[in-house]
């Protein structure tokens, strides 16, 4: 008898605990809906400020919170996905199969229909394979991309599939790893600014010559930084720039979303004139925009012409957003102080790429966010945050819109 009572008490306690947790979760979910652009930014996760694992914990203590199963297939894999392959996965989730083509998946995946697709950026020809997989397995309702950029899976077919599914009772949700890499890239951006402010190219040259040559350095303090594309990365850069005492101006599609942002002084919209104004005012320009139909070639030769004569241009978004030839010419002609580029139209750069010989440019092989654990952490984010949310029937974080491209 006593045993039964204590068991009942335990269940009631757990139930109440779950109720409390669920109630905070559901009120939060009710307030913010996907479609409202003003609310969209609450769905975005940032590694520095947000806490993970609330739902992971919830499932652990009360399996009643599970609303559905997650039957996962993975497209592409590498050692960073170990946590996914070896588990343990949250209760209710299972990995059905891994592959790089539709055929491989169809072979490995048994009759149970998958509903979740996890895409790794190392999957070859992902843009072609992804729509094929979605068509072969129409039961898939959620695609999670391990990287932040989704340009590698973008295609006409995907857009069509996505738009078509919007009408259906089970729309397709796509999420990514936004906020995962922002702080490393912000560190790189400020380093690149300081690299030119303290004239490291001159310093290193003099060091080679064993020449003690005192010269004036510049401060970042009170200079203006212009950020093209003010998403999570842009914001992380702005946050650091503000601490340095820089003035920050930002450019984004929805300026009103940053109206009360403490890290930027002015926010412009995405018209040509605004971009030119930003180029005119900035001593340091950081381009952190994704590569979409709208942004490709956005920082054009004309935009570069509006730069200050000793401006520094940094690109850590995507190569195709800028006109590379125009920037190369500007650098050769000394039209700006220098550039730092982590991304290129062609990656890897071939040995005969003109970039290697272009003067005044700091070149890095798209690795300035590549810490030893960054991709592992991105997989962890899927396993500990979005997957438990999916299992509990909660809103997923980091939604992307393939029509917009980010």
């Amino acid at each position, binding site marked *: 008898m006593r045993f039964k009572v204590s068991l009942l008490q335990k269940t009631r306690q757990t139930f109440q605990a779950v109720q409390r947790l669920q109630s905070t979760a559901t009120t939060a979910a009710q307030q913010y809906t996907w479609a409202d652009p003003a609310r969209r930014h609450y769905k975005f996760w940032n590694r520095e400020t947000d806490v993970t694992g609330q739902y992971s914990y919830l499932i652990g203590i009360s399996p009643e919170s599970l609303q559905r199963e997650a039957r996962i297939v993975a497209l592409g894999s590498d050692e960073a996905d170990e946590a996914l392959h070896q588990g343990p996965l949250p209760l209710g989730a299972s990995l059905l199969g891994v592959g790089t083509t539709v055929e491989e998946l169809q072979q490995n995946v048994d009759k149970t229909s998958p509903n979740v697709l996890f895409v790794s950026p190392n999957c070859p020809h992902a843009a072609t394979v992804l729509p094929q997989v979605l068509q072969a397995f129409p039961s898939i309702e959620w695609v999670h991309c391990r990287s932040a950029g989704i340009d590698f899976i973008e295609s006409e077919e995907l857009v069509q599939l996505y738009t078509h599914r919007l009408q259906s009772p089970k729309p397709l949700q796509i999420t990514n790893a936004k906020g995962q890499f922002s702080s490393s890239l912000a560190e790189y951006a400020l380093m690149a600014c300081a690299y030119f402010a303290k004239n490291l190219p001159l310093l290193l040259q003099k060091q080679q010559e064993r020449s003690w040559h005192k*010269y004036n350095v510049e401060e970042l303090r009170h200079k203006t930084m212009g950020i093209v594309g003010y998403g999570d990365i842009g914001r992380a850069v702005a946050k650091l720039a503000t601490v340095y005492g820089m003035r920050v101006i930002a450019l984004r599609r929805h300026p009103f979303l940053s109206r009360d942002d403490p890290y930027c002084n002015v926010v412009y919209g995405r018209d040509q004139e605004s971009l030119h104004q930003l180029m005119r005012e900035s001593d340091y320009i950081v381009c952190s925009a994704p590569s979409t139909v709208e942004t490709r070639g956005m920082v054009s030769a004309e935009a570069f012409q509006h730069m200050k004569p000793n401006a520094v241009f940094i690109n850590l978004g995507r190569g195709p957003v800028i006109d590379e030839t125009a920037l190369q010419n500007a650098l050769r002609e000394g039209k700006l102080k220098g550039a730092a580029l982590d991304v290129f139209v062609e990656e890897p750069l071939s040995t005969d790429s003109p970039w290697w010989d272009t003067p005044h440019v700091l070149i890095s092989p798209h690795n300035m966010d590549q810490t030893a654990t960054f991709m592992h952490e991105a997989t962890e984010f899927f396993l500990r945050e979005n997957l438990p949310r999916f299992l509990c029937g909660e809103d997923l974080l980091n939604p992307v819109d393939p029509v917009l491209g980010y």
Partner: protein
Amino acid sequence: MSKTKVDHNLFWNREISSKLAYDANAPIVKEAKIISLSDVNDPSNRPLNNPADGLPQGSRLLAVGGSIEEFDIEMLKREGANTIFVSHPLAREPLDRLLQEIPSIEWIHSRSAGMDFVASPTLASFQGKVTNAKGLYSSTLAEYTIMACSYFAKDLPRLLKNKGAKNWEKYNVLELRGSTLGTVGYGDIGRAVARLAVAYGMKVLALRRRPVPDDLCSVVYGNDKESLSRLFAECDYILCAAPLTAETKGMIGKEQFDVAKSGAVFINVGRGPIVDEDALIEALKDGRLKGAGLDVFATEPLSKSSPLWELDNVLLSPHNMDQTATFTYESTSFFVEENLPRFVRDLPLLNPVDVSAGY
């Protein structure tokens, strides 16, 4: 440990402190009769030596010169010179002579933050007020410090080598976020660096003579050998931002490098003689230190034969990482606009220096 007699509320920081915050209505009670021990050709001294709008009320420039021969000591004694502005690099001897010959001197102001260039027994026993340019260079040096940390975290030496070799080699980088920065000496420079480091998500440990807790630091160590070794053992980046005094000379050497954490980076923006330079070179060569960012050296200019020039893992700058186009000019302006008006009104002077401690 000598007891500091300075009031820390009087420390002025270029970024944070208000300008011209003295009570301008307070009556002028005495005249400032100034000797400018400076380079007459240096335009940075113009706010004092050749001001466009004259000096503040109650201040009079008696003489300008770089060596003792250029001064008429009898005239200065007659006039009752009471203030010396010192910025000449070779000022130690002339300053000593002026102090010995002119008893009416009551205030010495240094255009630089470092006092080691004029340190002497005569100065150490000076009974009047001494002030300096503390807080004027801190934010620029803080910018350099964080850049030096990032330079090694993102492995810039490798990056630059790869560009020369046209080699697209993706390698892992380190984040500053989550790493630990230790600062030896937690004055205005140390604090400016800590402010930035905390914004980057670094943990900050400080070592200072008065281990007063600070909101930016996780731990503040006192100035003993054991604490210094602990700092080297616990930190990924170690900054030396201490002044050169009898206590700090040769403070950092083999003993500390032996216990340095694996991958440690050493940055020096204080003074060269605080570090045993030979021990530093050894530690850089055998990998006890991953790298070093050095702006100051035991002898400056650094001799061409020093091994530091050719080490791949050294970022070497010619004591210019605070040398903005305007910094010395701003420092002279600080003397003219902030401390002179305070002196003539007998208000507390900013940036007091404890000559017995040497900083």
